[in-house]
């Protein structure tokens, strides 16, 4: 059928208007992402192939004195790959992020389920309570843990009192990997609860009724109906927790002990302490690649699960 002859004039106007609206609405966020994500990303990639400047920043590409001229190099990448220590920092950080994600998931899932199955009125209140910690500054909440875990705190005294009763050595809760993990879980828990809740809330209760009618036990109803349906929520929640934890430097800085360096700290150190922008950029790029790889692996696993589940 010849297309244009049958489209009326008002309809065509509508199409143009819709197209215009699409651009007006999606234009600003698109520009924002381009300006503040894509372009800095490209700058970072370019910086990773340069030499560090004598006073920080990057060495000049053009110089009056040819002796100071520094071109483009693969040196930072060579430095990164020739030394297993940076790989170790990555592995350690990935383990920290995995542990945080798993703990958040096991804590958030029952909570999200509880909220999703509550009556509408109390549901809204509970969601509000989950979001409430965001009302106070992130650093203040982390600093608060210094007091909670400090040696004078009630918690420390209780734990050490119990350990003493069992005839064991007292422990320091603050400035330890434990403190870092606790604060990481604390800070990121809402990011796991919210996507899980939005997913679970949409489940059709009649599916569970049907399963029950067909003789499924409570556990079977959960494992064969609710859980598979909630997988998208689990994945988005896990991504929202895993990725920020991987890049976090403030929590280990404030609560960590003498051995709690993560990649975030290493990258921050390159920009602020060592004034080595190229190596900092290289580390950031490696982090991006690691996250993409892990996301790809997770997506493949999810796909395989989805095909038989």
């Amino acid at each position, binding site marked *: 059928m010849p297309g244009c002859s049958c489209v009326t004039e008002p309809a065509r106007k509508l199409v143009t208007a819709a197209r215009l609206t699409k651009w007006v609405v999606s234009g600003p966020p698109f520009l924002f992402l381009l300006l503040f994500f894509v372009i800095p990303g490209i700058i970072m990639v370019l910086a990773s192939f340069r030499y560090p400047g004598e006073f920080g920043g990057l060495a000049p590409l053009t110089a009056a004195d040819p002796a100071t001229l520094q071109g483009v190099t693969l040196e930072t990448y060579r430095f990164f790959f020739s030394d297993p*220590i940076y790989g170790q920092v990555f592995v350690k950080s990935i383990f920290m992020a995995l542990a945080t994600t798993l703990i958040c998931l096991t804590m958030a899932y029952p909570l999200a389920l509880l909220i999703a199955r509550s009556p509408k009125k109390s549901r809204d209140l509970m969601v509000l309570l989950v979001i409430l910690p965001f009302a106070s500054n992130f650093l203040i909440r982390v600093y608060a843990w210094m007091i909670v875990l400090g040696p004078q705190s009630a918690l420390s005294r209780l734990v050490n009192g119990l350990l003493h009763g069992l005839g064991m050595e007292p422990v320091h809760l603050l400035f330890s990997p434990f403190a870092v993990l606790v604060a990481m879980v604390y800070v990121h828990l809402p990011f796991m609860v919210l996507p899980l809740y939005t997913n679970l809330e949409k489940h059709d209760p009649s599916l569970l009724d049907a399963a029950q009618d067909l003789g499924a036990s409570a556990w079977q109803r959960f494992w064969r109906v609710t859980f598979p349906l909630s997988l998208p929520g689990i994945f988005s929640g896990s991504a929202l927790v895993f990725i920020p934890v991987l890049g976090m*430097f403030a929590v280990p800085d404030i609560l960590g002990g003498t051995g709690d360096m993560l990649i975030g700290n290493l990258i921050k150190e390159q920009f602020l302490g060592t004034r080595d922008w190229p190596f900092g950029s290289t580390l950031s790029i490696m982090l991006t690649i690691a996250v993409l790889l892990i996301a790809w692996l997770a997506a493949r696993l999810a796909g395989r699960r989805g095909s038989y589940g």
Partner: protein
Amino acid sequence: MGCIGASVFAPFILRQAQDERSKSRQPLPMPFVVSLSNHERLVPLMRGLLLILMLCSGSAHAADVLHLYNWNNYISEETIARFEAQCACRVVQDYYSDNEEMLAKLAAGATGYDLIVPTGNAMESLIRQNALRPLDKGLLPNLKNIDQAYLNTAFDPGNSYSVPYAYTLTLIGYNREKMRELDLPVDSWAVIFEPRHLEKLKGRVTVLDSQRELLAAALKYLGYSANDTDEAHWKQARDLIIRAKPYWAAFNASSYIKELTVGNIWLVHGYSNDIFQADLDAQKAGRKFRIVASIPKEGAVLALDSMVLHKSGPRPDLAHRFIDFMLDGRNSAELTNLIGSGNPNRDALQYIKPEVAHNPAVFPGRKQQARLEMLRDLDRHQRRVLSRIWTEIKLR
């Protein structure tokens, strides 16, 4: 990924925001004003602009503003007020909390600062970047007050660009009662690095979260210069640090003040004015202990902050007046009384509270002075090697 980017670059973004804020407070840049005055027909316009500026600020002396870019809490309010009264001008301050931050902001193009107070090595890099204005010493009669020991440093030979302002030592700070009780030596870095002492202090010690400072302390303890760049010596220092590390609670550069005050931490490798602050806070809170600083016999790091004129500053005349004003012992003493900073001004001593003046960590004796060293900047290769060592220290 956005989250990672945001968290990594947050400090830069914040700084950018500060830049914007400070720019709005600055006067018109010099070239603009000059080029306007070159054109006769623009003079009325310029007058109009000036009038608007004056009306906006609501002050007859709106044009007389000194822009000071200084460390946080590094000048007393009374000093500023006295200078403003004396010069009939206004002092506008912007603050930084470390040299890197200040350098980064200037590198990003911040202008309009008349005076900056950088530490030696940061000042050296500003000089080498040709960012500073040479001093006119004819305008600084009070320069004679400065102790010779703090003049003519390697960072600025002949003091063409800089006048010493105040200094900080990196030393040992400790809970006096606890250290007495445990019978530990407090005159040597050994107490920070030797497991035989640290056994009594497990989990009660913090060291600075600074590659250069901690390395310098370890090098000093091993009998080398704080500026030693021999990689073999660095590795010895690394091994010393790794051996002591299990006994330390944390690498910490800020909250150790509070931890000392509360009594959670008993021994720190820290800055003299922070330790001074911790003691003031402990006394204010009525604690039963004192926090004391001591210079280890092996020596320590001295960080001398100097006043310098930035080239972009529009009022070098006011800046010179301010420098000479600060060289007056009375004004210089106020800072020492406030934060316990070291004072290179011989004329200031008479105005300093006796308890501060007799504190050897604030005013080291001649013999101790000879063991103090200022840190030189490392080149980029050395910085990368040190960062590698630091990663290893933190990972083990």
